[in-house]
């Protein structure tokens, strides 16, 4: 049902989203928007609700049906396996590769829905050549950076319209982080929108055009990345 939020509106719109772990409320009325081909950064301290927000969008947390609008449809109450079929892929925090699968099998299972699009095994290997020569190794035999490449490649294999990246720099050496971030423009160039959750604020602001800062489950700052001054971010991050 294409309404005001039809193909011309933002690709993703989160409206007044709440999320709970049992009795604990993790998100309070969070609203964000992601345009087509846009890169949006979500920053905030530990426990601010960043990962919860991504999990809610991906369908791993229950949400109100119209709290998440994607490509003109309300998807808030959809289970994760249907959300990915609509074109949202999540690179989960900590990579979460399938340990008993090889590198190539991890990528293949990412593409098992056979959504049409630019990303194929060959294209992923072209983006991350280090994976091609290790394709038949167990995913656990790779370095942290290479595992992160597998996690990204696995999500790309779903040919998503929207790629959610949860802390892709976590636990990696700075040189590896720069290397991985250097590949993101190639992904955006294919028309994919990106949401990046990061603790590394400088990295996130450099990659994104829009930025949201979460604080204790609420949006404390929203604006263009170039307007996010050190003072504004610090205030939103720590609360005054």
């Amino acid at each position, binding site marked *: 049902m294409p309404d005001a939020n039809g193909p011309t509106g933002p690709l993703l719109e989160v409206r007044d989203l709440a999320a709970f772990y049992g009795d604990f409320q993790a998100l309070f009325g969070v609203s964000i928007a992601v345009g087509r081909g846009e890169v949006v950064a979500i920053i905030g301290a530990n426990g601010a609700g960043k990962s919860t927000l991504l999990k809610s969008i991906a369908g*791993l947390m229950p949400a109100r049906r119209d709290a998440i609008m994607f490509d003109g449809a309300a998807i808030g109450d959809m289970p994760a*396996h249907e959300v*990915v079929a609509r074109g949202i892929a999540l690179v989960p925090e900590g990579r979460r590769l399938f340990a008993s*699968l090889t590198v190539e099998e991890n990528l293949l299972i990412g593409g*098992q829905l056979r959504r049409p699009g630019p990303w194929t095994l060959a294209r992923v290997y072209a983006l991350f050549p280090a994976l091609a020569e290790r394709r038949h190794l167990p995913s656990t035999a790779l370095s942290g950076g290479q595992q992160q490449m597998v996690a990204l490649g696995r999500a790309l294999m*779903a040919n998503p319209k929207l790629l959610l990246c949860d802390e892709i720099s976590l636990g990696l050496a700075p040189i590896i982080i720069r290397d991985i971030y250097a590949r993101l423009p190639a992904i955006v160039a294919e028309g994919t929108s990106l949401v990046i959750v990061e603790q590394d604020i400088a990295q996130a602001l450099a990659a994104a055009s829009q930025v949201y800062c979460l604080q204790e489950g609420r949006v404390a700052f929203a604006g263009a990345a170039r307007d996010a001054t050190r003072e504004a971010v610090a205030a939103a991050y720590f609360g005054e």
Partner: protein
Amino acid sequence: MQWVNTIVQGVLTGGLYAMFAAGLSLIFGVMRLVNIAHGDFIVLAAYLALVVTEALGIGPLPALLMVVPLMAAIGYALQRGLLNRTLGDDLLPPLLVTFGVSVIIQNGLLELFTADSRRLQAGAVEVATWQISQGLSVGLLPLLQFVAAVAVIGALQALFYRTAFGRAFRATSDDPAVAQLMGLDNRHVFGLAMALSLAVVGLAGVLLAVRSNFDPSIGPARLIFGFEAVIIGGLGNLWGTLAGGIVLGVAQAIGAQLDPGWQLLAGHFVFLAVLAVRPEGLFPRIRG
């Protein structure tokens, strides 16, 4: 020569135990569910075969064409309708529910078929033997059962490590939450795993029914044999499960040779010995 014969018979019986074990190991591997009713499903399959052969006047082998798909359908329905609701962080609910299913199957069969011991008639193949040398002959039926067991284990192994199906099973086993992010519906994947498990059970049940007498109460002992074969062989390794079944079958055969009362005891002793010396099993999980 008598001992060679004993060991050969034990190996052949072991194939059947491996088949009991394969279905058990498969669903534990994919969804961490211990199916207490597994042995009773074997008996249920045997009675299904009995009904099919008597109603249609066909032999046990053609009956497989009906029993195996029927058991697979029962498995899928059982998983989607009942067992999926019991799965979670706690291992106890599925254990209790499958225990209840076990009681229901046993008593249901008792109501329908009485406690009389039954047997499937397979005709000439039952008594056909293959004389290898003086004093050593192998029954055609046990041999066919063993070949079937090896074929089933080989087919499951290929399915797990060579197909998209198997990839989905292994991924869901590794991390069910992330598997959903790949577009896999866990409830469906679990349903398929249970269907596959009970399809193997269907085959094993028919082979059991041709080989020996059965009545509604023998399920739990088949469950124990299956468990023991899995543990002896090592969890998560299908060829190990075959080896575990063979070790158990040989131990029972040797025990029975020494004293007819020692058949089951010898099997349990070997199981306990492996558990004490190598708790991870003889062939623990290898990465395919």
